[in-house]
């Protein structure tokens, strides 16, 4: 399996050895988003990048080509990496992109269910993995952004995330910085540090966070059947068959992004809103205590309500709906779902096997699955191979 920032060479056959569901594949073969701004950005990129550099990121087996406009140049990606890990980009020097998207934790965070932002403020959602994020058409759990470079400014400016009070002061500081000033100028000749180039640099780094070419890809797209164990193959068959996972986590004939680039109400948010009262709390390894949360005075979480995609579209059918996450490297990025409410992949499979969380807007694809314990275990093992 590969987690390859930067240059990756396709080295195996691209013809799938089996026949994953073909019909619903949507691959990002063109730049994300659209409009005049997008065209101007593409022209600017080609002007300062050139074809050879833009094509430098080569996708591993099982992934589509990275859109050249997002990939940028090696210099942009190096700059983007520096920015990604720089805590000084937050208002109080405490948070960087990498504090919620931790490389060793699948570019997500195993630390907590919900992300923790400026001065410890609780965010509403779990940090999503950034593996293969260059291919996502809809960013954030509610899909409210479609441009990876523009997305960067969401967390940078959110008061409860990185907390910058404005764009200008941050850009001015980067321009004046003895390290960043020249780096921006070298990466974006004639532009230097701007709101746009900062976003493009970080997006270029993120575009190189490719996860593919692993055992799953070698087995399914490379003809190397032995790359997966029999149990993993069983899990794969269930994934694309009886369990119906692939209806949303889509696989194509030559590549697999494991997403339909859409959003669904699985009932997690509705279910989460209904929890409370007593719960089993792990106080130390092997020390579990059934705690009445209200009785000990900790009932006020202050966690705000979350109705998902509905907040963006106001369409009642989007209530409690969230985008379909990609699944590469999913075993690294626990806890799961938009709110991190499920700790393990086994809990996720159990949740779906039970038909999700009943609610008025539940996606019709979510239904009881009738999986046996062996089948559930096989799907979990298969997911671990991605």
């Amino acid at each position, binding site marked *: 399996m590969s987690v390859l920032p930067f240059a990756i060479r396709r080295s195996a056959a691209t013809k799938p050895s089996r026949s994953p569901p073909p019909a619903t594949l949507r691959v990002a073969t063109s730049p994300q988003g659209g409009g005049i701004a997008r065209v101007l950005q593409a022209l600017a990129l080609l002007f300062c990048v050139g074809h050879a550099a833009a094509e430098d990121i080569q996708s591993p087996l099982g992934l589509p080509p990275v859109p050249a406009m997002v990939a940028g140049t090696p210099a942009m990606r190096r700059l983007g990496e520096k920015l990604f890990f720089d805590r000084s980009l937050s208002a*109080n*020097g405490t948070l960087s992109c990498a504090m919620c998207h931790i490389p060793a934790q699948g570019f997500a965070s195993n630390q907590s269910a919900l992300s923790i932002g400026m*001065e410890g403020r609780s965010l509403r959602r779990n940090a999503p993995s950034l593996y293969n994020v260059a291919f996502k058409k809809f960013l954030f759990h509610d899909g409210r952004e479609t441009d990876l470079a523009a997305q960067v400014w969401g967390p940078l400016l959110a008061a409860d995330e990185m907390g910058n009070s404005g764009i200008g002061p941050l850009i001015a500081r980067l321009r004046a910085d003895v390290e960043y000033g020249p780096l921006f100028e070298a990466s974006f000749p004639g532009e230097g540090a701007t709101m746009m180039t900062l976003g493009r640099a970080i997006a270029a780094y993120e575009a190189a966070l490719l996860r593919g070419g692993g055992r799953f890809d070698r087995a399914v797209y490379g003809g190397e059947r032995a790359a997966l164990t029999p149990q993993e193959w069983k899990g794969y068959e269930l994934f694309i068959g009886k369990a119906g996972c692939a209806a949303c986590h889509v696989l194509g004939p030559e590549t697999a992004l494991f997403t339909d680039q859409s959003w669904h109400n699985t009932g997690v948010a509705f279910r989460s809103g209904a929890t409370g009262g007593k719960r089993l709390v792990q106080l*130390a390894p092997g020390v579990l205590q059934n705690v009445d949360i209200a009785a000990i*005075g900790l009932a006020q979480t202050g*966690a705000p309500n979350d109705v998902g995609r509905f907040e963006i579209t106001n369409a009642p059918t989007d209530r409690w709906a969230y985008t379909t996450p990609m699944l590469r490297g999913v075993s690294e990025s626990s806890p799961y779902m938009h709110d991190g409410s499920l700790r393990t992949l086994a809990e996720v499979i159990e949740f779906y096997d039970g038909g999700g969380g009943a609610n008025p807007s539940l996606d019709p694809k979510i239904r009881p699955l009738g999986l046996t314990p062996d089948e559930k275990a096989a799907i979990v093992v298969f997911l671990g191979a991605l």
Partner: protein
Amino acid sequence: MKSLPSRAVLCALLLGGAFAPAIADETCNSPFMSGLIKGQEQYLHVWTLGEKGVGDGSDKLVTIDVVPGSATYGKVIHTIAVGGRGEAHHMGFTDDRKYLWAGRLDDSKIFIFDVGSDPSTPKLVKTVDNLAESTGYVGPHTFYALPGRMLVQALSNKKDHGGVTGLITYNNAGELVTTTPMPLNDGGDGYGYDIAINPAQNRMLTSSFTGWTNYMMDLSQLIQDDSAMKNFGNTMVMWDLKAMKPLKVFSVPGAPLEIRWALKPGANWAITAGALTSKLYLIKQDDKNEWQAKAVADVGDPSKIPLPVDISISSDASSLWVNTFMDGTARLFDLSNPEAPKQVYAKKIGAQVNMVSQSWDGKRVYFTTSLLANWDKKNADNEQFLKGYSWDGKELREDFVVDFHKEGLGRAHHMKFTARAQKAEAP
């Protein structure tokens, strides 16, 4: 930075006997401190968290006059706002007691105040603002004086904001000397919290808490987050002080926090409280002179998670104040048999209580309220005060209260004593 911290200096002091335990001042101070207060403390310095909507909202060092009979007894006489809210937490004196180091757990800044020139009006003389970038650690918690050095226990790291962390040694000028990672092998979980040194034994104990994500998170949310609750320390470490090498890792489940060595001559044991498991743990040598840690008492009803936080041991090691944050209660344990501490007194101090400091003679006991900004209680239960009490061996009697909300100050956290007429301790 790989050089060992002040080994030669430590050796010289240990061999020269300059480490004789202090027989004055607070019982939690480093044994390497000089200039101890004999008798009545005159000022209390409270490291105070800025609170949105309270005064200027900034962290500040607050100085309170505690000289009996003074016209300003029990009043705020000085404040220094340091700017921003960075999770002000603990403080510690340099070995000469002239400077007070105060840390912030969020932005990892360390503020060094001159309290030697005029303790009634501390002055900020230096800010260390590159701890994370220079060491990789974040959350400077405990400040423990070594000869010519300040040993700092961090709580977290800048890689993942988890609990794996290390010790940082600065010289007294605030320059980085070295870093020492907390052990990750032989049972070590890499976590850190407090430091306590027994120089006669050449032993240092450290305890363990949690990383940035958890200590910054809302407590109610935290306790309902199964992923986060896994990320607490469950160990203590016994170190060879001179070599700064871990010797043994003890299993001490549930976030063991403050450590206090018994200062009674010949009593080579230490005590701590497990915050989540609500137990007192004793660290003592067994019949084979092997150091062991074991649970010796419950604090309150562990099923209700009373959250024992700060502790303060009496100078003769006969008793221990233990604050339980959730019920705002100070509990006194009889330690005449440290193998079986018994609670002998309790008093509700307020809706919440965290820190406790007592004078060397045990006659004056001070309490403050704030634990962590997002762990403090909400709304009316978010009382923020410093309360001074007299202790006659039977009853705590309130002498004064400083309401940190009414005064527009914020959240009252760590206290330290100073005095104008302090005298150097005789060797």
